[in-house]
């Protein structure tokens, strides 16, 4: 079959079961858009800014476990995608981003809309390619797709010069299932699995700390992790990226850990004697000060990426491979040997944890005059019960509160920018999620400042006419910046007030979208239900208390057992060492 480069691109993607491409046309991708126009196997979602295209693809990928596909033009199209690509790299999200490029004979001449896309995206992709020869095109698309989704997933860029898109060659139906150079690990050494099991059985104060790797490994991995938790009756805490792998309902779940994690999760991490880390990477938001991080524990680390082992924290027993396979190996070994953790010491450990839980670290002083952001999320959480909702967030205080006060019962229901902390992520991500799950409730929990960063996508939302709900916790501040200025910079709120805000109802209406505002705590429940029941998109402006801080908090430079629980807690938040940290 003789096909043009553009037709090969679309056919290869369709054969890989790609259903949707998020993109924005331009000069260097016109042949590909022409090929899209002439077929009906792949749907195209038009965005209003390329960054949003990448975030939509991320939302799509994270809520389905599939590869998100993006198509942008050369030059500014590619450079606008960089933030999204970096976000996907940090959070290990499988993406394939196709970028147009000037024709091969113009590369290097500073041609119109030329950028060194491969050079620019080298450090924000798992891998990237420049296809200079039509004969390499099909194999590169197939290989790029394989690289994006296999091993530790990540974004892949394929740069496509316009002349290659227009050339013609034979279509060969190439499938890539392995590569000579790139060989991701699957199963760990059985020896190490046995060492890990031995350590866990002997533990007196064990804990599981799991992360996004479990979600990436697929729903089967989440089920196995839940089985392991139940079989061992072991406490588990999950990272921001890992929420939902084990249900929030699970009696052994201690809540999220880390800087704004729960008191019980962080205390248990600090005091444990055996830590099983499953698909998480000991990021600085998790560990706090490394010098004091879980000082007396033996650490077992399951990770598909060998570079995660010993990167920040010294590991005693590394298990390199896909969590699903390793959890499966572990569970089988446990059951085969009928080994369990000594009941007496485990009960003692649970008693200690129960004492920490009694601190009720997420309690806050409510008000019947003004909506507390925590309250807004509690009510939202209640009203979402039983609806199998998908939540995305922007970045900042609202994101932490959402992680603390919303419950996730299944994996792939929670999409948030963890590693890069990209304001502007949540709204387009929610559109991507809704594209993948048209019948499910999708809510973007946002702050007003983050929302302003990609609000042009209201136009995309209107065009798609899908029922994404944007739930803005509006405190008129870049809340997390303000909180840090309060704690670390003497309350000098330099440039953190979100001045000149639009009237969000009028803004929504101007796009033909329903706008709502709620200011009275007593109307929260009815407003939220009105929003959820509306058969279409809604932008809801929730006017919340302006100076609320996120607690608990491990101050920068402090240890897990030095948490500040509330504004009344007189624990020092400002240390010389902490000031230099982020």
């Amino acid at each position, binding site marked *: 079959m003789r096909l043009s480069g553009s037709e090969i691109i679309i056919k290869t993607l369709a054969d890989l079961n790609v259903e949707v491409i998020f993109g924005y046309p331009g000069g260097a991708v016109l042949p590909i858009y022409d090929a899209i126009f002439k077929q009906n196997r792949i749907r195209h979602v038009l965005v209003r800014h390329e960054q949003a295209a990448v975030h939509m693809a991320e939302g799509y990928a994270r809520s389905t476990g599939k590869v998100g596909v993006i198509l942008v033009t050369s030059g500014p199209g590619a450079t606008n995608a960089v933030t999204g690509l970096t976000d996907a790299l940090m959070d290990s999200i499988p993406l394939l981003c196709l970028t147009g490029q000037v024709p091969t004979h113009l590369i290097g001449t500073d041609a119109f809309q030329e950028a060194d896309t491969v050079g620019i995206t080298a450090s924000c992709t*798992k891998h990237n390619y420049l296809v200079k020869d039509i004969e390499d095109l099909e194999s590169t698309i197939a290989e790029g797709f394989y690289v994006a989704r296999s091993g530790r997933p990540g974004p892949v860029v394929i740069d496509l010069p316009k002349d290659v898109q227009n050339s013609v060659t034979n279509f060969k139906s190439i499938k890539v299932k392995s*590569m000579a*150079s790139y060989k991701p690990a699957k199963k760990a050494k059985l020896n190490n699995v046995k060492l890990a099991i031995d350590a866990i059985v002997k533990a007196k104060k064990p804990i599981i700390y799991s992360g996004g790797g479990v979600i990436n490994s697929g729903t089967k991995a989440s089920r196995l992790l839940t089985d392991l938790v139940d079989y061992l009756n072991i406490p588990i805490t999950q990272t921001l990226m890992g929420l939902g792998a084990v249900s929030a309902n699970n009696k052994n779940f201690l809540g999220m850990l880390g800087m704004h994690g729960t008191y019980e999760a962080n205390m248990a991490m600090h005091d444990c004697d055996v830590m099983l880390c499953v698909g998480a990477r000991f990021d600085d938001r998790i560990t706090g000060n490394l010098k004091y991080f879980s000082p007396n524990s033996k650490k077992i680390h399951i990770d598909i990426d*060998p*570079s995660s082992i*010993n990167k920040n924290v*010294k590991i005693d027993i590394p298990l390199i491979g896909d969590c699903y396979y390793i959890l499966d190996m572990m569970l089988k070994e446990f059951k085969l040997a009928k080994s369990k953790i000594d009941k007496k010491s485990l009960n003692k450990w649970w008693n200690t944890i129960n004492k920490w839980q009694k601190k009720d670290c997420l309690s806050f002083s409510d008000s019947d005059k003004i909506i507390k952001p925590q309250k807004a999320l509690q009510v939202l959480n209640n009203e979402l019960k039983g609806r199998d909702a998908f939540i995305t967030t922007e970045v900042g205080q609202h994101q932490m509160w959402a992680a603390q006060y919303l419950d996730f019962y299944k994996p792939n229901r929670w999409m948030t920018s963890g590693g890069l902390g990209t304001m502007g992520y949540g709204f387009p991500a929610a559109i991507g999620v809704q594209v993948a799950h048209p019948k499910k409730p999708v809510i973007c929990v946002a702050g007003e400042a983050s929302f302003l960063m990609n609000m042009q996508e209201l136009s995309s939302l209107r065009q798609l006419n899908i029922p994404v709900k944007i739930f803005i916790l509006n405190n008129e501040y870049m809340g997390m910046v303000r909180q840090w200025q309060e704690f670390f910079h003497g309350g000098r709120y330099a440039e953190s007030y979100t001045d000149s805000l639009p009237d969000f109802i009028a803004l929504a209406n101007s796009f033909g979208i329903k706008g709502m505002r709620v200011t009275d705590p007593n109307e929260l429940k009815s407003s939220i239900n009105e929003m959820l029941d509306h058969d279409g998109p809604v932008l809801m402006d929730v006017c919340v208390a302006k100076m609320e801080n996120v607690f608990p908090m491990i101050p920068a430079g402090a240890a897990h057992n030095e948490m500040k629980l509330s504004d009344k807690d007189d624990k020092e938040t400002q240390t010389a060492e902490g000031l230099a940290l982020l």
Partner: protein
Amino acid sequence: MNDINTHTFSVIVDNKSGVLARVVGMFSARGYNIESLTVAEVDEDRNLSRVTVMVTGTTMVIEQIKAQLERIVPVRKVVDLNNEGSFVNRELLLVKVKAKGERRVESLRVADIFRARVIDSSNQSFVFELTGSAKKLDAFIKLMQPLGLVEVSRTGAVAILRGEKALLKR
């Protein structure tokens, strides 16, 4: 554990455009120091290049460098030669010395001691070629400095394991 050591890595990569940029970019992005780096195609049939890179760091950093190199998609194999037993390394040096009279004669004598070769000569200058370990080359440069050394060019080290073991099967 926190001792800083120098390690020599042999990295077999697909000989494709941009691979060297990826290797070098990884070092700069993660703030690791490169002491020296060389690259050339070594297997035309399989289209493979070999990068030899010398790095310094603590054990944890050296381990991390290996893991990070292995993450680069077109990298086939990474070997920390220091962990594989004994290896030899060599570097090529070209030195230009501009001198007259006694200093010119003395530079030839020093070159002879080091078994350096003269590969270019004019009335007032020599270009010497010398291979050896980095230390040997350093010593040669030091001795040539007072004798009129005007320019140095070095390749950086290449290395190979001693004995019959090969990094890749033929």
